[in-house]
């Protein structure tokens, strides 16, 4: 097993915010099972702020921990702040990820951004 940090193990064993928010304002999916990781983020947005965020993850320990971490980092942030979260930051918050886990499982921020973009596209469409 890759040598995961305590923080990763903590998020893997006790993942936060699992699931799908009801009637999501935005949905973001990344990855696919071929590469081994797939994440689906759903967000609730209120006053330009991420009021709630949940995820479903098919993937390895790192992928699960990353999803959990991203959900914690995003919650309560404004959309602009949340969009600034990078995969690198997530990995750092987790106390680092093994080298071979950096690119494949570390897609949490991308999934979050996609959910935000989805929300913004929808908002623009309904505004337009």
């Amino acid at each position, binding site marked *: *097993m890759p040598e995961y940090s305590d923080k990763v193990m903590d998020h*893997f*064993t006790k*993942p936060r915010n*699992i*699931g*799908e928010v009801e009637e999501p304002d935005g949905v973001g*999916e990344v990855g*696919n*099972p*071929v*590469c*081994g*990781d*797939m*994440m*689906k983020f759903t967000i609730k947005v209120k006053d330009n702020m991420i009021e709630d965020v949940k*995820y*479903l*993850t*098919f*993937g*390895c*320990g*790192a*992928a*699960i921990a990353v999803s959990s971490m991203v959900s914690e980092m995003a919650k309560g942030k404004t959309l602009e702040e949340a969009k600034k979260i990078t995969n690198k930051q997530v990995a750092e918050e987790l106390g680092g990820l093994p080298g*071979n*886990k950096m690119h*494949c*499982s570390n897609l949490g921020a991308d999934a979050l951004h996609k959910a935000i973009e989805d929300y913004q596209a929808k908002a623009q469409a309904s505004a337009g």
Partner: protein
Amino acid sequence: MKTVNLDYAAAAPLDKSVLEAMIPYFTEHYGNPSSGHTLGEKPRKAIEKARENVGRLIGSEAKNIIFTASASEANNLAVKGLVRAGKKKGDHIITSGVEHFSILNQLKGLEKEGYRVTRLPVDSYGSVDPAQLEAAITDQTILVTIQAANPEIGTIQPLEELAAIAGAHDIPFHTDAAAAAGWIPIDVEKSGIDLLSLAGDQFYGPKGSGALYVRRGIRLMPLVEGGIQEKGLRAGTENVPAIVGLGEAAKAALETMEERAAKAVEMRDRLKESIFDAIPNLHLNGHPEKRLPRNLNVSVSFVEGEALLMRLQMAGIYVSSGSSCTSQVLKSSHVLTAIGVSPELAQGSLQLTLGPESSPEDIPYITENLAEITTLLRNMSPLYHQYLKEGKNNA
């Protein structure tokens, strides 16, 4: 915490009596078998006794056994050794798509040198079809190398038929029997096998012990050139303790093969029944009957193998997986791909291999934990939620 190893294919504890047999050759009988004086005699005789025992395990005369440090080395000596000796002219090699990397990777290298390689497909159980071997043979074919059994999904190949076909065309037939030797009966003479690789650590012998059977008349180029140990096919001071251990393990494996196999099969089948009863959407990988006694391989739909593995480990249960995240090269198992397992199911595969400490008493514990963990991981899996919504399994 309870500990249940279900990954004995990766490694098994050395049999106590094998270790005991080895110990004197570290200290008391430490001599060099090539020495011209008495100190070399005991080690030399011990090596020859081991050669007898390893030969007997696979129906070979002692003198056709070459000791190596691993099955990987035996495979490399067999394939590259034969190709480089270049006795038979041609540029074509036939193998299967489910071989171990120590076969596949050298063949990739040989392809770069200009050799052509045919990788025979396998059916959904992982079996090679002898008719396809027959069809693949050309007058340029210089080697057929097909494993005896697959270490991951357990499928046993129709070795005698495959060897007979190669033999009928006068093409050397090599089999990587690292996963099979010690577990199922093998007879190189009766089966017409020309080269056979095995690994001691796969039947409770020491790590760093392997052997290559080389039929009389087959010429090989050594990988390790130097002294004339092992008939000049493998230079270097003999690793006497490892060889002694390999010999003892081979003896024990031959003597107890039926017993060991029966015990493994019984527990394996009960384990399989237990988990299939408890957990929906499991899939058996490999042949339902023609498989290694100690091997079980299942795919757990909707979840990924490393996560399973980590959770199981937290419950003291050790397994391995064909998922890309557990592989060191970050690709999911080429074996599962070859038998047509979908990418999702390949990610959720578990290889369970029984061993000396396996006990049917552990089955409830295994099943309980696997069921619980599966539920937990499925509940957070987008694939599972999709399945629940769409009511069908895409996998």
